């Protein structure tokens, strides 16, 4: 070990899966007090590289050094012992236990006793400004709080190299800014941070150094100051020129397709419900419901579409077309198309073919009478694959073999083909790369001509790009509905998402 050796350095790391080379000759390092961003599109090999560093995969070639010492991990526990902690997108916390219990549990596994763990928990939480109540159960925490609990857990286990896999994917804008403040504290305390992302703004805002990964290689390694514009960064990442905004033509909204009055309901298994919701969506407009995850949006979306168990309408009324139904009798309508939040388990069936998945909500178009005509639906699927440039070898591919972006495009194509009156999209681009995101945005804007669109999103940029009107949701209520063209109103969204003026007193962390 030497004092000025980097905390972590990879030299020539290569990882193959069969024929596919996921990482090729990767060399990069993280120094003490440095925040290193690993930028790349989906499928560029970011997650594989992180898994190699965290000991989940063994590299086929190359070396990993920690504080100058050559290491070989055969499992994640080895990496943890060397101070490398991973914060995955799906947090490794037991939901039914409290934060403290979770932390003690993992502390025990590396030989730290409960009392010591509690002491460190208090001290580290203070030092890094993590601010999570250790006595709360993880299931009751917001995504941002869970992430902080996860960070605390790793710090208690002596981690000083923290790796974050797309850490802001589940966070709201204010929460993401909070995370970057934590990065600052980690930096001041001499930790090394690596975060994987494909969001350019974040890289510019939070990183000391940027490594850009494309097709398994590091194609550029730069400091944020050396980058002239986001456009240049995007070009490096994608390999071609990209327009970072989508054209949105003016459109006069038509008749109201959906109207909710005093709509209230509950969420599944103790999750936040919603109450007093008054909203209307007209044909030709995109109404975005924005909010930090866990403020009742999932329950509201489920109650409107009536096709998942995430929420249930209980009181108030729903008017769809010319028909008004009281909430308990509302069971959804076939004129509502829905892109669900969980594209892998709800929106598709991973071990069925693309053609079979394309029939999921369009069984009426899949054959005459009782017959299921696979060749007919396969033709339609093939067309969708071409029209939406979905990367697949054909309609016979398994849905599980598609990347998130391509799968989402297939689901989108299927739902658009239903010619719906109302189109409900939940987090349609969460976790997707720039190219897919743009295509999905463009498709939603095109669809405005034909339907009213109700968009649920936690991504401020997405909402500002797409929405005509913006409803901010907090703790189950719509705080305000803003005009997207009103710049003053839009500027308040971040504050409203955190509870606005009313809740300033009791929410200490943004």
């Amino acid at each position, binding site marked *: 070990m030497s004092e000025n050796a980097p905390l972590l350095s990879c030299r020539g790391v290569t990882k193959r899966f069969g024929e596919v080379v996921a990482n090729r000759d990767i060399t990069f390092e993280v120094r003490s007090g440095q925040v290193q961003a690993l930028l790349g599109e989906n499928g560029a090999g970011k997650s594989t590289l992180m898994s190699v560093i965290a000991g989940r995969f063994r590299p086929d070639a190359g070396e990993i050094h920690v504080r100058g010492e050559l290491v070989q991990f055969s499992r994640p526990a080895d990496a943890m012992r060397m101070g490398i902690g991973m914060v995955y997108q799906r947090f490794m916390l037991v939901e039914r236990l409290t934060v403290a219990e979770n932390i003690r549990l993992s502390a025990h596994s590396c030989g730290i006793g409960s009392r010591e763990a509690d002491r460190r928990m208090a001290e580290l939480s203070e030092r890094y400004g993590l601010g999570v109540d250790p006595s709360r159960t993880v299931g009751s925490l917001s995504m941002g709080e869970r992430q902080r609990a996860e960070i605390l857990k790793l710090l208690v286990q002596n981690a000083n190299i923290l790796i974050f896999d797309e850490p802001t994917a589940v966070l709201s804008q204010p929460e993401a800014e909070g995370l970057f403040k934590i990065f600052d504290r980690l930096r001041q305390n001499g930790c090394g941070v690596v975060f994987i992302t494909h969001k350019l703004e974040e890289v510019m805002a939070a990183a000391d150094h940027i490594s850009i990964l494309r097709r398994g290689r590091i194609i550029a390694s730069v400091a944020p100051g050396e980058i002239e514009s986001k456009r240049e960064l995007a070009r490096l990442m994608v390999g071609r020129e990209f327009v970072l905004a989508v054209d949105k033509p003016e459109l006069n909204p038509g008749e109201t397709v959906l109207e909710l009055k005093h709509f209230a309901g509950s969420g599944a298994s103790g999750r936040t419900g919603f109450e007093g919701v008054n909203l209307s969506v007209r044909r030709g407009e995109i109404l975005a419901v924005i909010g930090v995850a866990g403020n009742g949006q999932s329950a509201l979306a489920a109650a409107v579409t009536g096709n*998942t168990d995430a929420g249930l309408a209980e009181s108030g009324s729903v008017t769809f077309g010319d028909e008004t139904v009281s909430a308990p009798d509302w069971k959804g309508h076939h004129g509502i198309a829905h892109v669900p939040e969980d594209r892998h388990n709800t929106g598709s069936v991973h071990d069925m073919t693309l053609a079979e998945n394309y029939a999921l909500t369009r069984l009426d178009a899949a054959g005459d009478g009782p017959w*299921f005509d696979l060749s007919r639906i396969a033709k339609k699927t093939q067309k969708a694959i071409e029209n939406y440039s979905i990367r697949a070898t054909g309609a016979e591919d398994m849905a599980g073999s598609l990347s998130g972006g391509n799968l989402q495009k297939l689901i989108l194509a299927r739902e658009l083909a239903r010619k719906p009156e109302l189109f409900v999209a939940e987090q349609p681009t969460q976790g997707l790369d720039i190219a897919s995101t743009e295509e999905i945005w463009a498709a939603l804007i095109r669809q405005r001509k034909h339907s009213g669109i109700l968009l649920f999103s936690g991504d401020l940029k997405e909402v500002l790009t797409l929405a005509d009107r913006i409803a901010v949701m907090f703790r189950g209520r719509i705080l305000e509905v803003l005009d997207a063209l009103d710049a003053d109103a839009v500027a308040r969204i971040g504050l409203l998402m955190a509870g606005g003026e009313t809740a300033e007193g009791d929410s200490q962390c943004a």
Partner: protein
Amino acid sequence: MRIVRRTRPIRYKALVTALLAVGFALAAGALVFAGQGVNPLEAYAVMVSGALGSLNGLAEVAVKAVPLTLTGLSVAVAATMLLWNIGAEGQFVWGAIGAGWAALYLSPFLPTALVIPACLLCGALAGALWAMIPAALRVRYGVSEILTTLLLNYVAIIFMEHLYFGPWRDPMAFGFPGTPTFPEASWLPRLGKTRLHLGALVAVLAAAGLHLLLARTKWGYRIRVTGRSAQAARYAGMNTSRQTYAVMATAGALAGLAGMGEVCGIHYLIREGINPGYGYDGIIVACLAGLRPALVPVYGVVLGTFLIGADRLQSAMQLPSSIGLVLEGALLLGLLAAEAVTRFRIASGKGDDNV
């Protein structure tokens, strides 16, 4: 060395599983034979020639394959929707009771040509109705069908015993509890001098029909979706309660047809021993076939060969009669082992604990 989950499924999973299972059963059987002082190769030669070496042997294999195929289909169709029908045995028994009722008590009122169709219908219907109990408990109260179908088997068997010991008992058969022999009009036609009966055609048609139903109809598509992802089925607006009833009714009817075939095609009466566990064997057949209806008859014949071969072995080499059960048990264990092999792999690399 440690065991890790395979990251991608292996190719030809169903075939590999079946080959491994059969191979494991043969290897385990060889050990048992050796323990009994019998040369395993010789024993297997006797089994093969006994089961497949003569026309009569082949016909007997087919006779066994009929109920095995039907109960196999019963388990397979339910499992396609992720329902575990351990109750094919009870549904089989009810199929026998339904067919027996038609043969003994309904046939006097029917023209001869309608007696066999009536037996078929009553057998299928009785099995289907019996399967409605676990379906209703599952839909209404969320009770696991694994438990209810299994436990109801014992109820069905005891009820059948009650019938042939009590109200349906043949007063002319002294000492032997059982129903009177069915009238000849209810006997399923046989092929030549063998015991191979019309049930074989029923089994083949059922397999083809079920294959078509699952692959080519919207009904079958819905069932496949529900079995793979209940969330996706809910999202697509499918009514899983109604599907549960329909699938369990289909499964019950198939097992019921197996029971009908045994009493109307082989025994011509109901007595002890008409149900030697075909319902449970159906689980093995369905798993060997990877739940694919088109493959179920194939593995029905494979298991039939095992059973007939073991039968012949017992008489030819004076081995205990339980040798058939031993082989069948080994087949089931082999199936589980094969399942593990196809899902996990052994990785090299040091490490004293498995993650």
